[in-house]
């Protein structure tokens, strides 16, 4: 076997030779191959990710562990992270997506958290097979989440032909743990057992996720298709209960899930983080198939497995727990002082490598901060697409477009209510969960407006962070932390690496301005097929502390006569990168969000809860004001309607602009002046309409255009002309 067979470069191989002081044998080469792959080592993104701020008052655990952890209050911590399963979902949509859900759940379980929510961010193509892929992915996410019993409470989806052969499946998991429950992968002590729990190991996905995710997908890799991993949510459930019960004893040294690159990655990372070595006896690993070689056992990506480290003294207290939950298990080795990972099979040593070299020595690609500066300065030219007259048919086409229409066909296939915490589920722009036994609840938002990054990744990064922070601000919720899922093409190409640089710089700058930390995330590169790469796509998940979860700030009006106010951070009403533009012109650049002003809008919203007796608020997003108003209308009692006026010469731009930082506020006319006072200088607040007693939407742009509620409802639910 040659270093190229396992995806290593000449340079990397030479580093391995010099650090080991010898040539690695085949098994060792395989271990390096997966651990030094893009997927496991983050070699192309690590230095870019170092730009992200990790510090925050609520941060308990930043990046570097299985998931980030933040403090909800003085009793509860929240573990959360986003993870991608893009390539596997293209190869086999149902199982690819299902195992993605299982994988991210195990990440937060390994931190000691009991999962309470899932959220999914999906990108699909527009060709014939895209619908089949979408159907499979949704089926897979539901199949796993529903069966293991964790609600999928929010999510998002978007479409573009750039995702035809590279769909994106990013899933976020959120879990809760009592303060004293935390574990991690750093506490392994010499002499302790390595206990492998869960599904017996098969030849699943050998050299699969990790290697495929590190190469471009194309005909050349077709023959490398591994045995597809099949998710078993039932085993996942038993494993979750067993692991959480074992952690609750406080008798474990460390816990590490098995994800990409299976045992190899989990043992190497565990040892590296704990500063120890380990011996593994492969004949002790329960296998599903006969005659599996050391190479296969070490690289298998069989799902539903977890590694516990427990001292011989404590093991007798743990074993009965594992037995109660009927999870297969085996003591497969011990931790040792000497910093070596020794892999044996029936007494023969098959590999012996320092974990430090395996997990800590992969060279990484340097970040180019001068590129980031260039990108910051290089504000894209905005085209001046100014359609003049408002056409109601165009409005309906925007509402019914794939980018705006109702997602009920997706989220109704997910159990969004199990665990009985969901106060706001997928019918809203963000999810709000109560937490049992605490006054504070969770606000969870997930978003990654991809179109905005298509022409100017930096703007896309800014907008993604800005959107989730805004969704939480509208509820008066404190952002505890963010998790980011970064998806892009082949980083060896300068264009792609530049895009990645812009995207991450945007996320970092926005996080700094809003003073919110990133506590973890995921990077998926090589999302390209035959040279065509996806738009650089960042998905941001936010977890916030909601102060009154049982009474969210409504997102639609509830009473006749209420004012409809639009807040706007100023600047030009650009249609750049909007759905309107996509449908009726062509995609131009998204206007750079003015974060300073947006921050002031958010501050005002944050204060509103304390100063204004009752009001509603809804963020304006895809489809602009028209779509936001329609969604609010459809959520109101059927007897109520809205009338909204916009300036006749600028109607189209005012109704369809997707510029960041716009909100609709619904409030009692008496309270409107107080609301306006909260808005700082330069922030525009304007009464644009009111709630009427006639159930329909009337848009006044010079003349009045009337949209029947039933027509809006049908268009929103089934698409334009549907």
């Amino acid at each position, binding site marked *: 076997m040659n270093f190229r067979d396992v995806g290593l470069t000449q340079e990397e191989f030479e580093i391995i030779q010099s650090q080991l002081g010898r040539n690695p044998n085949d098994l060792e080469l395989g271990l390096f191959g997966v651990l030094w792959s893009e997927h496991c080592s983050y070699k192309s993104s690590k230095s870019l990710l170092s730009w992200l701020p990790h510090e925050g008052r609520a941060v308990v655990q930043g990046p570097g562990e299985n998931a980030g952890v933040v403090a909800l209050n003085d009793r509860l911590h929240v573990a959360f992270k986003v993870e991608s399963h893009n390539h596997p979902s293209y190869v086999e949509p149902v199982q690819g997506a299902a195992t993605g859900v299982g994988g991210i759940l195990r990440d937060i379980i390994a931190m000691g958290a009991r999962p309470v929510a899932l959220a999914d961010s999906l990108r699909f193509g527009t060709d014939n097979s895209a619908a089949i892929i979408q159907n499979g992915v949704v089926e897979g996410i539901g199949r796993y989440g529903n069966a293991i019993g964790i609600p999928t409470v929010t999510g998002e989806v978007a479409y573009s032909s750039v995702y035809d052969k590279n769909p994106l499946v990013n899933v976020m998991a959120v879990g809760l743990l009592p303060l004293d429950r935390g574990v991690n992968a750093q506490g392994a002590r010499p002499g302790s057992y390595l206990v492998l729990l869960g599904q017996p190991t098969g030849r699943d996905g050998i050299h699969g996720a990790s290697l495929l995710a590190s190469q471009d997908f194309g005909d050349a890799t077709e023959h490398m*298709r591994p045995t597809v991993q*099949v998710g078993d949510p039932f085993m996942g459930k038993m494993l979750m209960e067993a692991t959480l019960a074992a952690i609750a004893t406080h008798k474990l040294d460390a816990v590490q899930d098995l994800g990409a690159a299976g045992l190899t990655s989990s043992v190497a990372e565990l040892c590296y983080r704990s500063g120890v070595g380990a011996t593994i006896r492969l004949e002790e690993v329960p296998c*599903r198939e006969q005659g599996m070689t050391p190479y296969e056992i070490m690289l298998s990506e069989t799902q539903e497995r977890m590694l516990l480290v427990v001292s011989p003294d404590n093991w007798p207290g743990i074993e009965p727990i594992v037995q109660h939950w009927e999870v297969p298990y085996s003591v497969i080795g011990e931790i040792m002082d000497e910093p070596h990972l020794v892999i044996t099979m029936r007494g023969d040593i098959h590999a012996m490598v320092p974990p430090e070299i395996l997990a800590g020595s992969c060279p990484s690609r340097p970040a180019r901060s001068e590129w980031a500066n260039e990108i910051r300065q290089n504000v894209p030219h905005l085209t001046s697409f100014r359609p003049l007259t408002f056409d109601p048919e165009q409005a309906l086409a925007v509402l019914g477009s794939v980018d705006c229409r109702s997602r009920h066909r997706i989220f109704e296939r997910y159990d969004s209510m199990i665990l009985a915490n969901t106060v706001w589920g997928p019918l809203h722009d963000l999810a709000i969960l109560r937490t049992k036994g605490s006054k504070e609840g969770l606000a969870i938002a997930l978003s990654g407006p991809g179109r905005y990054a298509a022409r100017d990744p930096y703007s896309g990064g800014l907008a993604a962070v800005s959107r989730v922070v805004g969704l939480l601000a509208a509820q008066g919720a404190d952002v505890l932390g963010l998790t980011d899922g970064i998806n892009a093409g082949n980083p060896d190409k300068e264009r792609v690496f530049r895009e990645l640089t812009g995207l991450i710089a945007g996320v970092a700058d926005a996080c700094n301005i809003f003073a919110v930390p990133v506590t973890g995330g995921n990077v998926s590169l090589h999302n390209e097929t035959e040279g065509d790469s996806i738009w650089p796509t960042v998905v941001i998940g936010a977890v916030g502390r909601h102060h009154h979860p049982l009474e969210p700030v409504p997102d639609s009006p509830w009473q006749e006569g209420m004012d409809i106010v639009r807040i706007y951070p100023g600047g030009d009403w650009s249609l750049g990168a909007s759905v309107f533009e996509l449908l009726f012109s062509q995609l131009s650049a998204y206007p750079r969000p003015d974060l300073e002003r947006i921050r002031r809008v958010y501050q005002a919203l944050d204060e509103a809860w304390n100063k204004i007796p009752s009001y509603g608020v809804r963020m304006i997003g895809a489809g602009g004001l028209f779509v936001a108003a329609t969604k609010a209308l459809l959520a109101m009692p059927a007897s109520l309607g809205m009338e909204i006026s916009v300036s006749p010469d600028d109607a189209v731009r005012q109704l369809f602009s997707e510029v960041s930082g716009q909100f609709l506020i619904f409030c009692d006319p008496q309270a409107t002046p107080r609301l306006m006072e909260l808005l700082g200088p330069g922030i525009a607040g304007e009464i644009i309409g009111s709630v009427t007693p006639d159930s329909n939407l009337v848009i006044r742009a010079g003349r009045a255009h009337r949209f029947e509620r039933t027509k809006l409802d049908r268009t929103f639910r089934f698409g334009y002309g549907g």
Partner: protein
Amino acid sequence: MTYDVVVNVSLKEAVLDPAGQQVARVLHNMGYAMEDVRIGKQIKLRFQAADLTEAKENARQMAEKLLANPVLETYEILVTEP
């Protein structure tokens, strides 16, 4: 002519069958000396074709394109002459 064709779809041998595993476990607990259980689909098709050769070819295409997922499954075709 009308043909009755049965397409049996089963998981590839190396692919995990969680449903089969659990059924085996329960049958074991019910007292049977189980070694293995695998669960597949039996799809009974009735359709028109010009002759037996065409019927077989049609069934093969249906299995390839729709009935079996080539990533995970294999299939076999049984034709009963009309």
